[in-house]
């Protein structure tokens, strides 16, 4: 019995973390956000060098063939550095779409490209995770798609999109397909690109080899675990920043970190956030090894980290006082990252409703 990370996993996470420490500085993140870049190509290139996009792609398709726990460690590092790079859609959900529902030919055509970082895939299944707003939804008939998909993940700069339709099917749509209208959505978080796809008789290639319905569920579970891990990384960085600030900032002739009011805020943040790490590890482990618990644990990880993440984000900001509220300090990049994580693929109430359905506590 060993509930923890292997030496290899620790080394892998550390190497991603150290790379991002160098290439994803606050200055770089700010530049990317202010320029509204679809993503920061140099940071993406550094991650490609480490093989990050191939984390979940099978080895014989050019990837590393690793597990969701490994991907969660990367998501945590990316959240920690608020890195403006595509990951959850292109490197986690899209590979799962191909391995779960793609034909051998589709797998061969797309997986090596995703693994090598030569292609970016957006993912449009948000309505399945968060429910449909404004009547969004995509219908498929005779190889053509109509309707709209909101909150498409890894939207900007995507070469193609994996699109879920309202009857549970999955499709591949090229970014330059005729009849496809792409609209960037501006969220609070300018470190990730989110968008809308409008389909007018758009040609699409269905993923038909496996069970598309079950595959969509897997993509959703994996995506939820990644968002939870992103919040864990961003949240801990906020706690560290708050603690560092409290050790330096002086008022009433003392560093504010020596006041119990401030110390207790920091202790509460750490106490609330840290058990979430074990929940994420377990959910990620269950995704690959304990299928019966996979969806439930993913839902709980997502909802729980959303709740404690919000608490950490606002409390860490308060510890920084007025400075925390400024743009100058840049703390808000982490605050907003956590804010977006919370709403994507289902806000906590919605996700807990899923958890209730999964346990037979209410009807679907």
């Amino acid at each position: 019995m060993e509930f923890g990370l292997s030496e290899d996993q620790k080394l892998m996470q550390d190497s991603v973390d150290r790379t991002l420490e160098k290439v994803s500085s606050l200055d770089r993140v700010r530049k990317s956000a202010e320029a509204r870049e679809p993503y920061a190509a140099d940071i993406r290139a550094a991650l490609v060098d480490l093989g990050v996009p191939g984390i979940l792609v099978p080895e014989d398709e050019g990837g590393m063939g690793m597990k969701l726990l490994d991907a969660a460690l990367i998501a945590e590092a990316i959240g920690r550095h608020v890195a403006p790079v595509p990951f959850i859609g292109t490197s986690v959900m899209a590979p799962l779409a191909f391995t779960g529902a793609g034909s051998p030919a589709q797998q061969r055509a797309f997986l090596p490209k995703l693994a090598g970082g030569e292609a970016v895939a957006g993912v449009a299944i948000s309505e399945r995770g968060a429910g449909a707003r404004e009547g969004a939804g995509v219908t498929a008939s005779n190889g053509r798609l109509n309707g709209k998909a909101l909150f498409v993940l890894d939207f900007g700069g995507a070469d193609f999109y994996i699109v879920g339709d309202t009857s549970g099917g999955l499709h591949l749509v090229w970014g330059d397909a005729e009849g496809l209208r792409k609209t960037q959505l501006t969220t609070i978080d300018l470190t990730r690109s989110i968008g809308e796809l409008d389909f007018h008789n758009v040609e699409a290639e269905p993923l038909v080899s496996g069970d598309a319905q079950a595959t969509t569920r897997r993509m959703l579970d994996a995506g939820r675990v990644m968002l939870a891990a992103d919040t864990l990384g961003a949240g801990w960085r906020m706690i560290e920043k708050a603690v560092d600030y409290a050790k330096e900032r002086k008022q009433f002739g003392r560093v504010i970190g020596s006041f119990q009011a401030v110390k207790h805020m920091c202790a509460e943040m750490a106490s609330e956030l840290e058990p979430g790490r074990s929940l994420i590890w377990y959910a990620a482990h269950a995704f690959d090894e304990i299928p019966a618990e996979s969806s439930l644990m993913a839902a709980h990880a997502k909802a729980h980290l959303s709740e404690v993440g919000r608490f950490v984000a606002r409390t860490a900001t308060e510890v920084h006082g007025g400075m925390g509220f400024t743009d100058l300090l840049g703390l808000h990049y982490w605050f907003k990252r956590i804010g977006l994580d919370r709403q994507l693929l289902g806000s906590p109430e919605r996700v807990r409703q899923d958890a209730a359905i999964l346990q037979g506590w209410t009807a679907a």
Partner: protein
Amino acid sequence: MDLAYGPEYEAFRQEVRDFLAANSDKAPRRFGVSRPSDEVVAWQRLLIEHGYAARTIPKQYGGYGAEPDILKSRIIAEEFANARMPMGIANQGVSMLVPTLLELGTEEQKKKWIEPTLKGEVVWCQGYSEPGSGSDLASLQTKAVEDGDDFVINGQKIWTSTAHAADMIFCLVRTEPDKPKHEGISYLIFSMKTPGIEVRPLVTMTGHAEFNEVFFTDVRVPKKDIVAGRGQGWFVANATLKHERGMLGDPNQAGSRLKEIVELMHRETLDGERLIDNPLYRDRLLQLQARVYAMQFHGLRLLTASAKKEDPGIARLIVKLQGCELNHQLAALAIDALGELGVLYGESPHLRAQGAWQHRYMFDLGLIIGGGTAQIQKNIISERGLGMPREPKLAKDNAEPKLAKA
């Protein structure tokens, strides 16, 4: 990550199961809160014989003498829980005094006290807190003045659970009033039958006397009944508190409470509708379910760290704070879901679960305060876990014992 225990441990698990199946008739049905009954003492002997209690205590002191193996300890706990069989005695003597003597006692003290304590023949109480010394325990004022071969003790202790039933007390007293407060304390062990000791029950908000106050008037204790040296009491006490905090905030307790609430919400109705069908109560249940899972997996993580002799750092420091709070919130949900039925207590008609939820809700507040208050826990987490500075010390802190003498 490997959640399987492997063949050696599964074989051990089977041994425990076989033992439980073969001996279920010998298990005591009721565990008293004070003195172990004959039934409990006999069960304890059987458990020690098989290594399911006092497992790692050396044989020469009455234990089973196994090498520490935290996974085997966990398997024992899991199997006893699954079979709904009581574990061995876990009173303050077994949980706190025995590890302290093992670490710091003389050979004579170990020989004399550990075995009868393990066997349930000697019951101990803990004399630490005083009315004026709670969170600031080191300011304690119970005096022990040297007189010939004895110390003569005067003062008062509070929150002494089981004092009314205890044979012995391990007690912190001030032997060195001139020294700075942490250096003037000694740790004494003595009989509760010594003349000059008076025990008064302390009734809490639950309506029960779970604790006592203990008064000492010219109580004579031989000087040799000190653990470690004079002035070493603070160091000894910290060794003991470490063992106490390990007992509080157990995530398995939260797990069984959650199960009870899930059953309750499937059974109880409101306006003819099951509580589990009410989306508001259900959402609160789900929020707490995630927290229970998080703390259980957090427990597995700490277990793994202990097995590998790694220091989990801040991860261990948060357990008491989070675990006690979670248990309290679970009790609160059960009460709210029961609505008006949730306030029934004592011997009332329509009472649910013998009033356990209200009792837990109140008693848990005691646990949040006791064993280091939530606020003291937050100081520890921020100072030792996050490296934040201590509150600036008041200059008069060190002088307090001197003033007391005058």
